[in-house]
């Protein structure tokens, strides 16, 4: 069973600049990490490979430095990495990202299952998985906390806010996984070294996947961030309760009492 895992490199910190012109995050020069949720997708794929065999490809769209995320995936034990990198891809929203990933998947052609994280820690939209499934006309199973494959059928336990469902579909399909599905393995030092030394990461540009430039990057993105701004949330003046801890506590309790909150 061949699998493709979509992984994203995300900024390590939350304190990050943005380009006031385009509203995009400035990723260049910011240390990146593999999106934590995508490690779960990789772990799920490795687990399925143990049971069913097959080849695992990690696919990522991003600036050249996103290769590090693919190396990390390799060190976890996946078979190969493909980086989609081209200045034409810059500024992509989720739809344009999905379009680009979709073309790469059409080029990869051989896969039974696509795995994504539910959401990325920077975008946090949880949109790329379902959009990719739509563009490839595949059934989607989202928010998986368990996956079982039986021949050509795949079943998941889907987490909902107030319970769960068991869903089933036929392969090929796309699954997004929750954080709690598994505990991603921590690669051993020698596999990390090996991932950097031997295993190759292919880099594909726009021309390699035959895309129409009007669908790419900022140009191909229907949503725009019009404005990014610092917002000081304010609601009137705060009344500070002064004094020693027990005095301040007494005063607060009095206030809550007066307001009928006790």
């Amino acid at each position: 069973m061949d699998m493709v895992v979509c992984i994203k490199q995300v900024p390590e910190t939350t304190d990050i600049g943005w380009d006031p012109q385009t509203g995009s995050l400035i990723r260049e020069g910011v240390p990146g990490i593999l999106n934590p949720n995508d490690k779960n997708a990789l772990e799920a794929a490795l687990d399925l490979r143990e049971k069913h065999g097959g080849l695992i490809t990690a696919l990522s769209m991003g600036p050249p430095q996103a290769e590090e995320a693919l190396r990390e995936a390799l060190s976890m034990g996946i078979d190969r990495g493909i980086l989609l990198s081209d200045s034409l891809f810059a500024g992509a929203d989720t739809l344009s990202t999905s379009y680009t990933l979709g073309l790469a998947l059409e080029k990869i052609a051989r896969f039974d299952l696509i795995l994504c994280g539910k959401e990325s820690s920077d975008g946090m939209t949880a949109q790329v998985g379902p959009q990719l499934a739509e563009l490839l006309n595949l059934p989607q199973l989202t928010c998986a906390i368990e996956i079982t494959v039986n021949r050509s059928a795949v079943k998941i336990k889907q987490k909902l806010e107030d319970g769960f469902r068991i869903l089933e579909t036929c392969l090929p399909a796309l699954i997004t996984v929750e954080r709690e599905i598994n505990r991603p393995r921590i690669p051993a030092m020698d596999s990390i070294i090996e991932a950097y030394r031997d295993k190759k990461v292919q880099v594909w540009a726009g021309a390699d996947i035959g895309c129409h430039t009007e669908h790419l990057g900022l140009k191909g993105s229907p949503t725009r961030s019009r404005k990014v701004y610092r917002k000081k949330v304010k609601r009137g003046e705060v009344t500070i309760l002064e004094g020693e801890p027990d005095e301040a506590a007494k005063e607060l309790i009095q206030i809550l009492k007066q307001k009928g909150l006790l």
Partner: protein
Amino acid sequence: MSPDELKEYKGLWVFIEQRNGNPVRVSLELLGKGRTLADQLDVDVTAILVGEGVSGIPEELIYYGADRVIIADDPIARDYRTEVYADIIVEQVLREKPEILLIGATCIGRDLAPRISARLETGCTADCTELHIDKEMRLIVAAKPFFGRNLMADFICPFRRPQMATVRPGVMELKAQDRKRKGKLICVDLNLKEEDIRVTVLETVRSAPDGTSLEEADKVVVGGMGLGDVKGFEMLKELADLLRAKVGATSLPVDAGWISKDYQVGQTGKAIRPRLYIGCGVSGAIQHSAGMIHSELIVAININPKADIFNFADYGIIGDVNEIVPALIKELHEMNPKI
């Protein structure tokens, strides 16, 4: 789309998610918000309702702000399935061309909205916490906290229709029903065949709502990193019990594993509107305030007088939670020795 094509799209739609024949709260919140936005554009609000045996719901949707309700009632739509619901909604959208489509950012809404947006090749802004209309440009502006400290971002979808957004449950006010409102019901036929649907639902288990979830709590005491460790949350629980409040948390203690994600308040947690919010060792980052700013009374306990939370708290105590919280517990015990 060309300017002429864009002009063909009119009206605001809200997808009504229902569970066992009851609309989920966020759908009703969106009808109220949608009503306000639609009035600014001078257009109708349409609720689109999909399911089996949902005929009891439409009146209520009108009372909450809809002018029209499109009903797709069919056994094939009994359980939510992405393809079925996407097919139905896309067909109606292509026929009637609404300019705006709003969906609650529930598990199901977040599964459905991106699927629809990809099929319609339009933009969908996920997990918004604010919506308003730019009248001049005739656009909906969807805002949400941005990655980074105290940053917000406004998103627009200028050249595609419908403009889509998913909205976090709890951030929009649930408006009162207006039982005098009248509206139009439109039943649509489905011509979907079960054998074309690729996903089967084998089982659904929903835990019964116990009516005491964080979102519905009257009082919430929220702990942040300032609590220091798991023990801090034990102390907080004691305070919460005495106040008959629920415990909540910011995202960092959740990430640290001190408390489960179910308790997280904020942009990526739950949005709450209690009568009383007490933040203990909470800095007040915008991703957190997005989920609690509509609380009636906000109290903050923080050691740093410059913490952002003091910008929007009503009452503040500047001090160490390890001193203030025990003092509050002691005071509450003295007040009511029985508990």
